[in-house]
């Protein structure tokens, strides 16, 4: 979804800077985005959600390249199934730390910079898994729930100062992260999700569900009685 979103922004000529773990892949993606219309050059810096000490350097590099960026989009996260996480404590720790604590740290550093510039947009990919605890995604969903709550808090606290937060809550989307899992109904595709997210970023919508049907689905799921959630297998 990050790639689809970046391509959409490139197609309209935005200036982009990439953060990621694999420099070789970032270089190729940067060239791809330049070829698709992004304002040249598209540079990149190493940034790993499991290495919070590197966040400041990465953000500095982005500032230098873009001349003080005005929006950060965090589309990276770790994923693993509930079974995998219950079985592997190291993986569990990595997922919880990367998806919640370190993402919040990154957002805090970014928030400070954006507010110092008078405002900006912070768009973070959370998930519908954070809306209500469900058996197959208890741990993953818990981290996402924390993240969603934090972003909502940011919206309450800093919106008046110019910080716009966009929380993206994708339902099941067919991406490489979910490859190998059977798709439930209402599964989305990355490009249409990206279109919705871009519109939300432009407008500053605080919460985006993509595909939109998931807003209704989760509204229902949030209201299901506990007894039903204990017995259901979704």
């Amino acid at each position, binding site marked *: 979804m990050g790639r689809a979103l970046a391509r959409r922004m490139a197609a309209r000529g935005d200036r982009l800077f990439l953060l990621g773990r694999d420099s070789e892949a970032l270089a190729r993606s940067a*060239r791809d985005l330049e070829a698709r219309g992004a304002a040249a050059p598209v540079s990149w810096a190493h940034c790993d959600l499991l290495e919070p000490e590197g966040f400041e350097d990465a953000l500095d590099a982005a500032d230098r390249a873009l001349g003080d960026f005005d929006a950060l989009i965090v589309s990276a996260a770790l994923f693993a199934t509930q079974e995998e996480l219950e079985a592997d404590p190291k993986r569990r720790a990595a997922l919880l730390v990367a998806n919640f604590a370190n993402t919040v740290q990154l957002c805090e550093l970014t928030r400070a910079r954006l507010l110092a510039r008078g405002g900006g947009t912070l768009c973070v990919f959370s998930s519908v898994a954070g809306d209500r605890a469900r058996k197959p995604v208890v741990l993953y969903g818990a981290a996402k729930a924390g993240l969603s709550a934090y972003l909502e808090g940011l919206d309450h606290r800093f919106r008046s100062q110019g910080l716009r937060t966009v929380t993206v809550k994708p339902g099941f989307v067919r991406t*490489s992260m979910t490859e*190998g899992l059977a798709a439930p*109904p209402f599964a989305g595709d990355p490009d249409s999700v990206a279109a919705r997210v871009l519109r939300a970023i432009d407008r500053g919508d605080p919460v985006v569900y993509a595909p939109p049907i998931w807003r209704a689905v989760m509204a229902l799921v949030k209201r299901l009685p506990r007894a039903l959630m204990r017995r259901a297998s979704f």
Partner: protein
Amino acid sequence: MVPFGDVASALAALGIGGFNDTSSMRLVVGSSTQPNALNQDLGGTTSTSTWPALGAISNTLSAAGGFPVPEPGTGLLLGLGLCGLAGSRRRARRWSAGRRRSRSGTLGRLRGRDETAMVAMRRELSGWGRLPVVEGREEVAEELEAASARAQLSRGLGRSYGDASLPASSTDRVLCTRRADRILHFDPASGVLRAEAGLSLRDIHRIFGPRGFASPVLTGTAYVTLGGMVASDVHGKNQHVAGTLGAHVRALRMRVADGRALEVTDESEPDLFRATQGGMGLTGHVLEVEVALERVESPWLVAETRRADDLDTLVDTLQSESRRWPHAAAWVDCTTRGRGMGRGYISLGRYAARSEAPSAPPRLRERVAVPFDLPGWVVAPWSIRIFNTVFHHLHRNTGSRIVSPQPFFHPLDFVRHWNRLYGRRGFAQYQCVLPHSSDGRSVQRFFEVLTRLGGASPVSVLKNCGPEGRGVLSFPMPGISVALDLPFRRGHTQALVDALNEVVIESGGRIYLTKDALTRPEHLRAMEPRLARFQEIRRKWDPDGRLRSALSVRLLGDAA
């Protein structure tokens, strides 16, 4: 029916008073006389109305019996409850069934998986004709170089019809390239594009069309990847002028069987370069493709149509018009026997000059989709004949008109998932090229055999082909190419393909492996003297036979 007033008087006579219009006792008495609790308000103790007159939902039960009607309220609650249960049960079942499937398929590999390694999902795989359908493991990866080390075959968007992109066995792993679609370099001066193998023709249109460039070879569908186009050495309506895609490919980056990733050009490794074009993925995994795009003044086309009433006229017109038009192909009705046999129309086109064309770019529109499989009996000889007759009469000779490139080049994309029209049984595509014979009747002989055996194809396309490409197994050769859809009928279709292959062998022609599902290996050997050279190059680059596909097992004698 007992009016409440009577009850009240009777009770009053017994000395029990206080029952009147306003006492709540009226409701109790009222409701006790009939089982329907909804109609409780009798409208007063002095009322002489009966329940039916008051609009009761049900009659009272009389001593003689009647029928009990359940409370409507109960019915509603029951209904809602059942729906709710059914809904949640269905959703739970579908999701739990999904989880069961993924658990069995991927649990064995979960331990080794980290966030960068991709999981290969065991699933049913098939080509576009859905014939055959095999079980195998498919992995979709964004980083091809790493993932190709684990796979026996690469596949793109799966538009080959038969088993060319299918794994040789259920334990073999196929690497799907569709998410590896980054553009690595584009030089606007020369039009040379370098991209990852998963970039599709559709994306090339969308990205480079507005900049005045087009692929030099355009297949009938735009849902093909660069890697797939190279593996099939595809051709289009302009093959007689522009050749196959291989003529425009400058370089490939490939991972060969021994694990090395190489830059392959006609200068550095000519045998590997030429064997890979049309090599059906059997020489190695294509990771990147460097191809020269064609500069076009305008994406719009000037098109004309010619109608022909029989096969001889059609073939002659196709040949003669091809000398004047860079894009030419013919659609043929091969279901009519006798005089009308081989009637059809010829579609001709060329890119418009900027002065002729609209300045606005053509819209790439979203198409309708066939949402589900049709039953197998829908596409049958009788319906095909009707379709062909209607189609023929719809097309007349036309003057020049400006057309959008999408319907002209990619008519197959007009309806998405059109392979579902053939139902679950699937269909066999058959394409061969028949070289010009001394008597000029090779095509006629082919169609005579086809109609004699009752073969009916809804969509049959003829193309006059020009010189051979440099790919070792490249399909086109000077002559006429015939492409047919054959709805699959057990027993009959195989016999039909055998008979057609015998005609092809006799004419000195060959078949297009990208379309093939049913050809016998001995027929292929008889029509392809180039096979020996191809196998020799394969053995040189892959002595242990690590790379293989269902097609190579069927036709080239690879071990399963």
